[in-house]
């Protein structure tokens, strides 16, 4: 009954201590190293001072780290059972944002709950990964191909994506859709179905665009080309490229980056934090940071491959994908490859909302790692 003749995980009476030891400590070490790099960057961003950014952020990180370790000890099957309720809660929050959300930077993204700003679209990406994984956990390889099985899954992706698009937050909507797509792909949905969906979007999008009013089109144009906005994103990207390029092979030295220290970058502590490392530590420093970020992505994939249940595999893959997309979109923007803005560099950038969401995701990832051998009963998920 049991693959490989090993006993299921839950039969070994594992205590909290054994679970704790099963956590991937190399992964935790890498996360802490990234937070350390973030501290150094924010210290430099403030002109060589722990205030106002660096200390603030490191306290948040420690709180989030405790949360991550706590979640890691929760049995993955309990998390699986909570997947759909969490998904429903996430959708309700997104609807609340649309109804009463806080308008910031021309878009409704934030919700004020008890004085704390939360951005439900950040959490929604995790909830979507959980819900889809729970859905496909029940599916045999043959059932995955059945349209009646696939349509609810597609709807589960489209509902939050649509709500996030309405905020409007094009960047996060695309990332959310990509996470959903990656999970469906890994679950074994046929390639030609993806081709079909992509072809459909390619046909419908221009038609929908054509039917918009003139002023609505103008709005979309401005959204897609922030580079024309010289004071905002356009200015930042020019300065950010100069900062990167002037770093050279070994950098200008810590706390000695001219672009950074002379305040040419107004938002350097948030979305453009990478430029500080790149300018002050050069290509060498950038590659080390890139390597650290990649190790997180790689270890998430490793956890996915090690898991012996489909739920764990898909969740780990989705969480790894989320982190990967964050990093890729942020770095590509900083290097001037893509125009979309508003995506921070996780664990490094100043700010609480993205950090918390990413660390909760890592908690779930570690729970998959700890409980990689558990057996899901036939109906349980």
């Amino acid at each position, binding site marked *: *009954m*049991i693959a490989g003749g090993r006993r299921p995980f839950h039969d070994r009476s594992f205590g909290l201590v054994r679970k704790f030891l099963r956590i991937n400590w190399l992964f935790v070490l890498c996360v802490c190293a990234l937070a350390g790099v973030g501290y150094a960057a924010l210290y430099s961003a403030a002109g060589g001072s722990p205030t106002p950014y660096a200390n603030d952020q490191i306290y948040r990180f420690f709180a989030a780290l405790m949360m991550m370790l706590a979640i890691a000890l929760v049995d993955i099957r309990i998390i699986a059972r909570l997947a759909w309720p969490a998904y429903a809660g996430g959708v309700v929050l997104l609807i609340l944002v649309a109804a009463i959300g806080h308008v910031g930077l021309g878009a409704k993204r934030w919700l004020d709950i008890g004085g704390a700003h939360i951005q439900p679209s950040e959490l929604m990406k995790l909830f979507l990964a959980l819900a889809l994984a729970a859905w496909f956990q029940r*599916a*045999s*390889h043959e059932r*995955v191909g059945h349209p009646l099985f696939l349509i609810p899954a597609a709807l589960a992706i489209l509902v939050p994506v649509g709500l996030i698009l309405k905020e409007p937050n094009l960047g996060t909507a695309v990332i959310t859709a990509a996470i959903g797509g*990656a999970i469906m*792909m*890994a*679950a*074994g949905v046929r390639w030609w179905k993806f081709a079909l969906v992509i072809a459909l979007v390619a046909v419908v999008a221009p038609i929908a665009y054509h039917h918009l*009013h*003139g*002023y609505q089109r*103008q709005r979309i144009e401005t959204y897609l080309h922030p580079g*024309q*906005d*010289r*004071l905002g994103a356009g*200015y930042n990207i*020019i300065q950010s*490229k*100069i*900062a*990167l*390029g*002037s*770093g*050279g*092979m070994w950098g200008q030295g810590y706390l000695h980056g*001219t*672009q950074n220290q*002379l*305040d*040419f970058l*107004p938002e350097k502590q948030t979305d453009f934090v990478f430029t500080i490392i*790149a300018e002050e530590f*050069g*290509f060498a420093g*950038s*590659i080390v940071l*890139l390597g650290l*970020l*990649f190790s997180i*992505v*790689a270890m998430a*994939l490793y956890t*996915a*491959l090690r898991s*012996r249940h*489909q739920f764990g*595999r*898909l969740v780990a*893959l989705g969480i790894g*994908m989320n982190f*990967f997309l964050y990093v*890729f979109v942020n*770095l*590509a923007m900083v*290097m001037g490859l893509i125009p979309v803005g508003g995506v921070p560099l996780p664990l490094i950038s100043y700010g609480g909302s993205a950090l918390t969401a990413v660390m909760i995701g890592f908690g779930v990832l570690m729970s998959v790692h700890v409980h990689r051998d558990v057996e899901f009963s036939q109906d349980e998920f």
Partner: protein
Amino acid sequence: MKREAKRGPVFTRRALIIGGVQVAAFGALATRLYRMQVEQHDRYATLAQQNSISERLIAPERGLITDRFGTILAGNKQHWRALFMLSEARDPHAVLARFASLIALSDDEMARINHDLAGRPRYIPVMLKDYLDWDDMARIEVNAPDLPGVIVDVGSSRLYPFAPNLAHTIGYVARPSQTEAAADPLLALPGMRVGRSGVERAQDEALRGSPGVSQTEMNVHGQVVRVLNSDPGVAGDTVQLSLDMGMQQLAGQRLQGQIGSAIVLDATNGEILAMASEPSFDPALFDKGVPETQWKAWMGDKQHPLTDRSTSGLYAPGSTFKPTVALAALDCGAITGATIFNCPGYFKLGNHTFYCDLRTGHGDMNVVSAIQQSCDVFFYRTALAAGIEHIAAMAKRLGIGTDLGVDLPGVLPGQVPDREWARKRHITWVQGNTVVQGIGQGYTTVTPISLATMAARIATGVAVGPHITRRIAGVMQQGAVAAEYPSLGLDERHLALVRQGMFEAVNTQAGTAYAARLTLPGVAMAGKTGTAQVHNDTAAEEVANFNFANVPYDERPNALFVCFAPIEAPRYAAAIIVEHGIWGAQSAAPIAHDLMTYALTRDPAGRDTPIGPRLSEAGLAPVLP
């Protein structure tokens, strides 16, 4: 475990493909980094050094406002000014002190400059002095080596070629306040203006544009060696209004010297063709800052020149309200086209007597002749028969006492009372209140724009919405197509009766506005006069041989006139109000006659000259000192 058998390997295969894509993506990022940081390092290092090749943001040219045929109503003219580049000066305060010793700066200016020096990002220059003359410029240029970071350049200020004719409608711009500048960095740029009223305010976002960048190479003293690259930015969009400047000027001229408002609408789609309000003011004064004496004079002026009477002047409609009352009564069945009320010159309700304008009485009146001759008694009784609720509902349907959604700031809806309205204000509503509603006195107030809307809606039977913006950057805005507006849902026969009454009021000898009939061949207009009392004391008027010309100016009634033309297929609707003009037929109708004659001979409705967004590049000829 059977289900694991196949999907496990499938997952592994696909996860490895996804992993491969991720590796490739990181590889691409690393490659890009290598290119920028190692291969192109020299180029970027120079650029970084040359952030003493300084990039300075330039305020974009504000968009033009034109009439429907492209006549420029608001443009820009250029002048010299001194700016201060913070990034180029090691000791900004020393430079500022030296500058102040050369050019006189007032205490207010010093305070503003110090505030800006403290709180600005370094890439946004600080304005030192605007509107420099030749002497100032020469002094700055000669002392340039001692003034690192100070540069003289061309700024632009707003020019209104037709001020003050259009001051209320176009509005004006002013410097952003400190809080506005702190909230939006674009507004912090020297030379930026924000719209404070009229179209300038309503379309501020479209008119602003996005800033440009000028790259200049500086020497060690912070002097400009040469301009490397200058991108003027994107000028604000051209906002094309539905106004016809010829008609607008005519409206202004005909009101000149009086107090009041004149509005002409395209009756089929609500486009405002002319909208004048007198007295007016010079909007260009706001651009430089209004002198305090001028401001005090405006505030103290009893005629309130800053108020736009067209959209926010509240007036009793007087007899121009009668078509609305007639439609309300016809619509609810209180009267029909055949209903006849006898007018003996007065109407008794309880122990109160309401008089007709014609003391000798009109005799037997139906709805058409009552509108034609403006019989008060007929409408006292009609209002009573219809009831205040129906009158209020019809007024709102026709655009009075309701938000019309005009694309201008500060538009007031006016008010029509109903029982709910009275209850909230603790007014005991008696029948006498309803009676005076019949002749547009009492609690009803209208703005000229709502009165013009009423005329247009009666003329077409369609719920047109008045608006003034026709195109932005050449793109036609919503509301220009007549088919966008829903029908009012009124019975065509009722509308025909009211239109017939208004036709006869202008085109028959017994009509109240016969003198203002059109003299064009084959075209006729329909209209309704109004004389609205501005005080409640009617006892004086009951004296024999009473003459309004003998009462003090402030107590004379307001003259009103609403009309539309041509009668067969209405295209233009107008409303005129002349404060204290006494008789609508005498003061207001002749203005309407001239405007309608202009409209029908030139026929601007439905035509325009599409202006692309690039017109602003041509601009107006620079006016340098």
